[in-house]
């Protein structure tokens, strides 16, 4: 029950941050709210027993992402305003609301959280990974095993994505070499 309490508190925290990021007029404030947001998200990953993702989110969300945002803001100046929050556009809210309701309608058909018989959590593929990962790869962390071995091709793609991001940023900012 207290697990649910913790999760509830986390979700409240995260949603508050998201709403704050959406509505704060000042861009830097929105970035700060977003930093707080990724703090909360990271604990959620841990609570859901995903330490790898949590670690990544910590390194990314609080670290590099926010710093990049700050740097981008340091290079730009947005005009000062007196308003704390942005006005809410109800037309868009209505549109987004429709999307949310439509997607929300599919939630009941999803497996309940933590259901051990769900196709993902208890499925055949998951079981295979958990049983064979160590035998086949000599790696205890099944996440690493799947990441680097079973789905190593994805990870190659992931590495290429990161590399591309660097190259693209070079090209976008019209530089020849890093640094």
């Amino acid at each position, binding site marked *: 029950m207290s697990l649910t309490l913790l999760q509830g508190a986390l979700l409240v925290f995260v949603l508050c941050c998201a709403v704050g990021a959406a509505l704060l007029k000042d861009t830097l404030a929105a970035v700060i709210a977003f930093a707080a947001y990724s703090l909360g998200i990271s604990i959620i990953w841990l609570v859901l027993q995903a330490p790898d993702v949590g670690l990544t989110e910590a390194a990314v969300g609080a670290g590099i992402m926010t710093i990049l945002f700050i740097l981008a803001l340091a290079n730009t100046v947005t005009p000062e305003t007196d308003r704390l929050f942005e006005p809410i556009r109800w037309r868009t809210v209505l549109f987004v609301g429709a999307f949310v309701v439509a*997607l929300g*309608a*599919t939630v009941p*058909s*999803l*497996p309940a959280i933590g259901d051990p018989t*769900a*196709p*993902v959590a208890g*499925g*055949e*593929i*998951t079981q*295979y*990974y958990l049983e*064979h990962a160590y035998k*086949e790869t000599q790696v205890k962390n099944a996440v690493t095993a799947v990441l680097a*071995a*079973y*789905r*190593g*091709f*994805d990870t*190659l*793609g*992931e590495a*290429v*994505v990161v*590399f*591309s*991001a*660097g*190259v*693209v940023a*070079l*090209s*976008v900012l019209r530089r*020849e*070499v890093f640094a």
Partner: protein
Amino acid sequence: MIEHLPVLLVVVPIIGGAVPLVASLYTDRAGWPIAVLTMAGHATLVGLLAEQVWSDGVVSYAVGGFALPYGIELVVDGLSLSVVALISAISLGVLAYARHAGPHENTFYSQFLLLVTGLTGMTVTGDVFNLYVFLEITGLAAYGLVASGRAASAAVAALKYLIIGTVGASLYLLGVGYALAATGTLNMADMSAKLATVGYDSTLVLTAFGLMVGGLTVKVALFPLHTWQPDAYANSPDSVSAFISALVSTVSAYALARLLFSVFTVNFLTAVPAARWALIAVASVSIVAGSALAVAQSNVQRMLAYSSVSQFGLVIVGFTIATPIAVVGATVHLVGHAVMKGGLFAASGIIERETGADTVGGYAGMGSRTPIAAGAFTVLALGMVGVPPAIGFVGKWYILVGAVEAEIWPVVAVVLLSTLLTLAYFARLGERLYFAEPTIREEAAVADGGESVSTGMLAVVVIAAILAVALTAAVPAVEQLLNETLPLLIQ
């Protein structure tokens, strides 16, 4: 070695793409040779692969040698082979064009090869999440290429592209999530089997379909999610717009087809007519709206971009009809459109360089000033309209036959109508090119644009024009290739 072709096809451009960054420490003109070498290798591999697919039908490759639904599978069949060959050919063409037209930076060629990586990966993969990864590589490289234009507006266009493209990819990812929730697997073949047992009318499956297909339609740029496309095409350098217009949406459309046939299968489409009709409706609206918007454009490249919106509507319609002949038609049109649209962008680039004309009005009388480019442009435009025997006609014809066979009469009407609409915007250009007095004075043009044009660039455009007609001869071969593939896809 021969059995590793599918994976080598992806890895070779990765390696090629990684080199220019280091090379730029020493020289700033290393990109082109590296890219040419890499693409030559790529083309060779495609050739070898073609031979293998021709004899074996379907080539499957388990990356890492793991048992199959657990590892990542690469699959090359007739459909993907056609697209891979297209990627290879067009890349070589664009390289020939870019040698002179630029951009010349190393980063450009790095991104170029990364884009090839992404596109090839999307084409050969047999795993829905792997598809997402390569979709994003493609996206990233494409955003960068669009932004490599010198104009300030290039960055705006690229950011717009990035945001809309990311939403599309994210929707796709969410769709993958729903499919995963329903089946617990990511391998396309495996997922397809499990989806059938889950039941096609399950909410999860339907949502997965909607989100995945919806996400990909953003990438394909169907109306009304096309808004990124005109800006992106019109603001990027000529080489880039030729490249992107020819391949990015094309491969996304291929991915959509792959999803329809290999994951959801035709059975799903017949079991859930609403899904099919929705897709057909979206595509049909896209056909008409794209043409109508194209007619309204004054900038030639924007017009071409809107034309793509319409043409991809046609392709998607063909795939959604899902009879063998319609699928052949859609494939032919997919490939043909890529050649023609790439050629059109390249030709419009040359025309702009030589005369400074970039609007429909400015094209007046330019036929005599740039005879070769304008001639090629006209041939390609006619092909696009669907004048036989150009490839554009064959594709349309097959799709039409498919629509007639499936007795989807509204589609027949829309496709026929679209021919006339296409004519409406291309005839305008053709007429101006050849039968009107120039509005741009020659001296002004030279002073304004005045960038030189190389033989390579002209050759690319001319070859595209020739291919637009000559590919028709290859249609029976494609058909035969697909006939081996399609029975597997369309039961």
